[in-house]
């Protein structure tokens, strides 16, 4: 009797599993050019403004293209990656979708994303070089970018003026300024302390400025002075007590409220600050350099829009996105402005008129952008290895040399596993 019930249970379960596999039949991509197709477009829920612009744009496309209808869905940003992955795991992935820099490499490197060279070719010359390069994987352009986020050092103008401090130009000056301005209720400086691709994005320039590329062209170049110096500086900032130990990139409210005197953050905050805190006086400067005379650097990256290679009709999807993001100048300017980003195309910059002449956009455009380094497309394992190293530098007593050695090992492992 006991065995019988066990048997029934197991048999039933096997039947269920079998049916799961049966349900996994592949959908054939339609290539008939006249058949009506509905394309699923997933975007993360952004500002009301940006959402509205996209809704309008999609509506325009749908009105003029009855045979290629786009169904725009907004997804909350929290755990968006899980929803995306689960959908693809069950052959229900969207045809067009937003993707974060952290996830981009995984999808691009495994053939889930369809190359977009064919559409980008047309306006190749309009693109800034760096913009195209950042979306290339194995020589092919794999994503559309609406705009770029640029990193800079934001500082509280009032605090600096009141305390008679000049905006810092070197790492030492930054540390000194932070020490002077930190009180028992205020931090001297803050940046994302939570491990993840965002933290990496903010802190890469510290490595680059010292000449450490970490991984370039598939070669691991971690065990060098540049890496050590960057990690040591992070440790100095944190151990001196002037840096906020638990801060995230969304803590702009903290900055505007005066809880931190300086913040490593990006151009997207300009729009937010203008909306929420129009009277708040702040300044933006390029990342301070390790020592006087060295060149500054910055990180340029951001969310992208990609086409699924497993979608119903990648060609039509590409046509649609190309039209929405490249053929509609006025709309593109609106999009870039709404996201407070930098245009990736010269024509868009021109059409924006003197929008980028205002402070601090001009700082970004003139002092930061020329020295910007593209956000590297590292695999998740590398992102984690670098994140681990940063975490150890910030919060542990592990000797820097040891951290660098482990980082090198992990990066080698990750690169070899390709």
């Amino acid at each position: 009797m006991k065995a019988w019930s066990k048997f029934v249970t197991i048999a039933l379960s096997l039947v269920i599993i079998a049916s799961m596999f049966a349900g996994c039949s592949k959908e054939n991509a339609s290539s008939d050019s006249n058949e009506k197709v509905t394309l699923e477009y997933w975007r993360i829920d952004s500002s009301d403004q940006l959402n509205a612009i996209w809704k309008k744009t999609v509506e325009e496309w749908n009105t003029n293209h009855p045979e290629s209808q786009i169904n725009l869905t907004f997804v909350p940003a929290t755990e968006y990656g899980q929803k995306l992955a689960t959908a693809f795991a069950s052959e229900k992935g969207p045809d067009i979708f937003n993707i974060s820099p952290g996830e981009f490499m995984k999808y691009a490197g495994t053939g889930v994303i369809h190359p977009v060279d064919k559409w980008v070719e047309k306006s190749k010359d309009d693109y800034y070089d760096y913009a195209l390069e950042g979306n290339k994987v194995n020589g092919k352009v794999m994503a559309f970018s609406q705009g770029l986020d640029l990193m800079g050092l934001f500082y509280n103008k009032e605090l600096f003026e009141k305390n008679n401090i000049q905006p810092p130009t070197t790492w030492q000056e930054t540390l000194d300024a932070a020490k002077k301005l930190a009180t028992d209720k205020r931090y001297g400086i803050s940046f994302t302390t939570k491990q993840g691709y965002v933290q990496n994005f903010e802190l890469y320039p510290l490595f680059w400025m010292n000449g450490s590329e970490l991984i370039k062209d598939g070669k691991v170049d971690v065990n060098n002075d540049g890496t050590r110096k960057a990690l040591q500086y992070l440790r100095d900032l944190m151990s001196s007590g002037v840096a906020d130990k638990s801060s995230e990139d969304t803590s702009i409210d903290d900055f505007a409220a005066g809880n931190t005197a300086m913040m490593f953050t990006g151009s997207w905050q300009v729009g937010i600050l203008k909306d929420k805190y129009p009277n708040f006086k702040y300044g933006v400067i390029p990342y301070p350099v390790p020592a006087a005379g060295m060149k500054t650097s910055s990180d340029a990256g951001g969310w992208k829009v990609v086409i699924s290679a497993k979608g119903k009709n990648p060609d039509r999807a590409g046509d649609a996105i190309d039209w929405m993001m490249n053929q509609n100048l006025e709309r593109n300017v609106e999009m870039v402005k709404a996201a407070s980003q930098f245009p990736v195309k010269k024509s868009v910059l021109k059409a924006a008129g003197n929008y980028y002449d205002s402070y601090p956009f001009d700082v970004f455009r003139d002092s930061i952008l020329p020295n910007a380094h593209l956000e590297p497309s590292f695999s998740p394992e590398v992102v984690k290895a670098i994140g681990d190293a940063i975490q150890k530098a910030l919060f542990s007593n592990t000797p820097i040399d040891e951290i660098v050695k482990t980082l090198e090992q992990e990066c080698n492992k990750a690169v070899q596993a390709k």
Partner: protein
Amino acid sequence: MVKQRRYTYLIYFIACLLAVTTLLPFFWTLSGSFKTDVEIAKIPPTLFPDAPTLKNFAHVFNSTSFFTYFTNTLIYAVTVTVFSLLINSMSAYALARLNFPGKKFMFIMILSTMMVPFAVVMIPLFLITKAFGWIDSLTGLIVPNLFSAFGIFLLRQFYMGLPRELEEAGKMDGMSLLGVYLRIVLPLSKPILSALAVFTFLSCWNNYLWPLIVISSEKSWVLTLGIASMASEYSANWNLIMAGSIIGLIPTLLIFIFLQKQLVEGVKLSGIK
């Protein structure tokens, strides 16, 4: 008599201390929901808002399709609660009182469903839901959540603790098994069923991940998705989120208060020799 008085005072004193610790974070959420964008970030955080505003609540009600989300969540939570209460109590009774082959194995198997992290069963569950054709529908939200080992385990333990005399008396009076269950056991279970009802309702109401995975169309969104959409990737908007959460927790709170009386009904042993 005096000793009892002192005990009572002691009880209240300790209870008040603990209550304050419990209330503090909650109260802070409440006050945060009335704060302006600027004030929510103020350090040190103020306990009472300087310039209380209803703007956050207005924003929640207006900018999101609040009523739709609320209704969806209500349908989802109520359906799951009522249905699972029914089937859980039946299964629990069988496991507690009846003897049958494979009983031990069944119980362990049921418990084992709670021992694997959701992260790794999420995708297979999605595949099954997809096979049924329930993706992006309330059905896909409801059905997988109807079955939970937690309720079965809770009720089984409770039934095992009930004095057998009442059921024996019923059997001797000639009641069938179903009769004993419906007319004796079920009424006695009111306290524990109320607790389980609140818990089940609550876990549905606060569920975020599965609704996020299963549902895409905004018209089928539940409240947690609506609240999450107020925090964009770039800005935290804590005052909005707190306002949304306060609104979100009111139904559960109401149900809890409503079921309070059930929770404290005791067993009456009168009539039993």
